[in-house]
């Protein structure tokens, strides 16, 4: 039967397409059903285009400082539309790359919106596809607004990242609601393109899930650059005007009215669990709306599995990708390495970058762990001085008794790249000693990792 596959995957985002490739590698006939472009939010309206825009922003700020480095570039002019077009080309290349990978691995791609049916079947339009082994639900998530306070996404004055990524020009002013990774990155981008940016966060500090020291470092850096940061703020009301929005924001015990051209909603995401036939197949969801899964990522309906954002936090592409690999190996009867959800790196690509893994210092305190914090600032790192990237630090939280790396936090240039040394260390249960024993090339930013490890042992060298 032509419409029969071993594995059918609903959704071609990072979790889905990686699952498809691994499934095909394991010799299972595989189909991916995708209603939009392959690559999902990440490739098309998420991780990938924002990284392209962030690099444009980085070039702009680099050129503004170029004189100090002996390079005269004249007056720096920016054009968000051009940067946006470039980011689109990057996204398209990546989406085409995923298409190529599907072909290369002989994965059938079905275009359309799939709806699950009992008996491991998926209906797309009038066609029905049947999975012999498993159906994987990888439908991902989307941005959500706050309609209850008048901040429904209207795609003109109140937008989400979906619209921000397609703007032809940078607005004159912008209030970004939510200072998590998305809010932080767009603040960085639009500020560099000349927008007057205001960053509003409900929790007491920006990047609330990161280590407090990372939040402090970024708040300082943003303020210095002229990005207004308002933490512990409550947006009480949003009133649309002609080409503008007026926000009532309560912070520090006072309510202020803020008038901006655009409001960017960067708080929270909703999972795509509606209209895909979950209830009909017996797939249950949790109180928070995620699909309920067991240790092998199987849902409450046998033969139906969930991976990626729909399967629960952290809602990160790389977590979904790993689930995609693991779930297909389980379906193929293998016994894969258990996913360590406590060892998923978290990265915000603003400048300076913020990357972390494991516990924050606050979490160590909450858990009453006996820990030592080792810290090394990039201002004491030779390579960072050379490139002028002296903001930030590496901080390692070490278990006092056994030297376990409880958590690591990096703020600084290339933090997103440097963190992986510690991800490998933690995955393999290396202690700070093993990290420090590895010879680090000099001069590199990564030396700060070794120095922070040494500092946690009380024998830092370079400071």
């Amino acid at each position, binding site marked *: 039967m032509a419409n029969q596959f071993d594995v059918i995957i609903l959704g071609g985002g990072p979790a889905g397409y990686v699952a498809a490739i691994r499934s095909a590698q394991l010799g299972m006939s595989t189909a991916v059903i995708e209603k939009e472009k392959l690559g999902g939010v990440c490739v098309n309206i998420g991780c990938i285009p924002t990284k392209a825009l962030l690099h444009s922003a980085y070039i702009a700020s680099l050129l503004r400082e170029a004189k100090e480095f002996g390079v005269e570039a004249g007056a720096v002019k920016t054009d968000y539309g051009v940067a946006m077009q470039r980011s689109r080309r990057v996204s398209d290349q990546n989406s085409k790359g995923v298409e190529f990978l599907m072909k290369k691995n002989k994965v059938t791609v079905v275009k359309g919106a799939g709806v699950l049916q009992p008996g491991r079947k998926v209906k797309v339009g009038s066609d029905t596809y049947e999975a012999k082994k498993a159906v994987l639900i990888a439908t991902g998530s989307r941005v959500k607004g706050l309609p209850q306070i008048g901040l429904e996404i209207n795609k003109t004055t109140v937008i989400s990242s979906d619209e921000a990524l397609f703007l032809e020009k940078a607005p004159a002013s912008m209030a970004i609601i939510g200072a998590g990774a998305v809010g932080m990155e767009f603040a960085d981008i639009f500020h560099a393109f000349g927008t007057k940016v205001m960053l509003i966060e409900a929790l007491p500090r920006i990047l609330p899930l990161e280590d407090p020291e990372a939040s402090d470092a970024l708040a300082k850096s943003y303020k210095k650059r002229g990005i207004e940061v308002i933490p512990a703020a409550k947006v009480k009301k949003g009133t649309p005007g002609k080409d503008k929005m007026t926000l009532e924001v309560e912070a520090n015990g006072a309510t202020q009215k803020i008038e901006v051209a655009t409001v960017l909603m960067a708080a929270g995401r909703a999972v795509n669990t509606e209209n895909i036939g979950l209830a009909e197949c017996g797939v249950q969801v949790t109180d928070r709306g995620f699909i309920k899964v067991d*240790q092998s990522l199987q849902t409450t309906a046998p033969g139906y599995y969930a991976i990626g954002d729909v399967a629960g936090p952290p809602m990160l592409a790389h977590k979904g990708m790993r689930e995609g690999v693991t779930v297909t190996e389980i379906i193929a009867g293998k016994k894969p390495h258990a996913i360590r959800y406590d060892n998923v790196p978290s990265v915000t690509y603003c400048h300076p970058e913020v990357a972390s893994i494991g516990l924050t210092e606050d979490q160590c305190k909450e858990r009453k762990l006996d820990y030592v914090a080792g810290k090394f600032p990039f201002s004491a790192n030779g390579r960072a001085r050379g490139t002028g990237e002296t903001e930030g630090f590496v901080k390692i939280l070490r278990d006092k008794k056994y030297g*376990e790396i409880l958590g690591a936090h990096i703020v600084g240039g290339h933090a997103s790249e440097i963190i992986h040394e510690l991800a490998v260390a933690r995955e393999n249960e290396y202690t700070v000693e093993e990290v420090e024993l590895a010879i680090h090339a000099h001069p590199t930013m990564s030396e700060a990792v070794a120095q922070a490890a040494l500092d946690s042992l009380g024998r830092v060298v370079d400071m």
Partner: protein
Amino acid sequence: MATNVYMEALSPTMEEGRVVKWHKRDGDPVKTGETLAEVETDKAVMDLVARADGVLRQITAAEGQTVAVGSVVAVIAAPGEAVGAAPASAPKPAPAPAPGGGERGAAPSAATPADATRVKASPLARRIAKEAGVDLKLVTGTGPGGRVTKRDLESAGGGVPAEARPVAAQPAPQREVPLPAPRSPVVTRGGAAYEDVPLTQIRKTIAKRLATSLGPIPHFFLTIEVDMERASEARDALNKQLGDQGKVSFNDIIIKATAHALTQHRACNAWFQEDHIRYWNEVHIGMAVAVEDGLITPVIRNADLKSLAGIGGEAKELAERARNRRLQPNEYTGATFSVSNLGMFDIDQFTAVINPPEAGIIAVGSIVEKPVVVEGQLTARRRMRITMSCDHRVIDGATGAAFLRTLKQMLENPLAMLL
């Protein structure tokens, strides 16, 4: 498909195992990791665990029966699965499950049989095991390639066999364990004055067997030669410093060093108490003093905490009162370890008799100038021989040797006592 249950090598030297008790009967459902039977190895009684889920069938080794490692003792069949006729009553030896073979992940069911030859463990797991006194060989690894991870060590009761856990973690050992290891290898102050560790079966047997072969206390002896150059220099310097305020003798230095070394080797600072061993957290040194009609051992209490001059004064005073028969009973009882010194009689080397319930005594010979090779040069050095008598019911050869090595290091580098 049915999975064979083999007699596994549960200790590195095990060649055969005796089934002590089946925990599961024919037809019982079993889960991976569940205890199927208790097996007596050459060292202890260990659990034989299920390596698959299913129903236990075809038990071929009866309770009390001894079978070779690698023999099939039962099978685990899928529920309802028909299994072939029971193998012949003498089970054919089959290879034990190959450790490290096949693709293995860390999924909860992917347990790996303990590998007796080489232990794969993460650096963190190694460190935790070392400090906690856990034998990694006995822990089932679930990491990549059967590596023991921190989680494996933490899942006590599940993956960690009781034998692998430090004894102190159990309220009372229900089964035999290799050694009644004290909770701490070193003396821990601030808590109870001592810790009673019940005698385990194997210890009881050793105690009985050795006692009948060697007399009431099964002695064994360890001799070590110590370079006393630096101790002599230190003594000369100290005595110059003290001037008229007394003298430090070699005996004082030896008592001090012994007390210090014992704080690091609590296993030797112990009493044999018939059904338990008392490991002391206080160090009281009995000092053998020859008196007119025999011998008495006055006690220098907490010798490890006293200064050399303090020990010297007390030793002199106690010895004098011993000779005058003026000692109170509490002054010659309660030692945790003893020192007997016949060096002043030019005895080169001798063995001392243990003073029960103490588990050890050292016999100190005279300091003699001897030709020795130091850094390739033949030279004359002041040397001294110490022979330790150990109660084998408490102290094993390696335990006593480790203590003597520390004692030697202390005497050869007297400054270490200041650490």
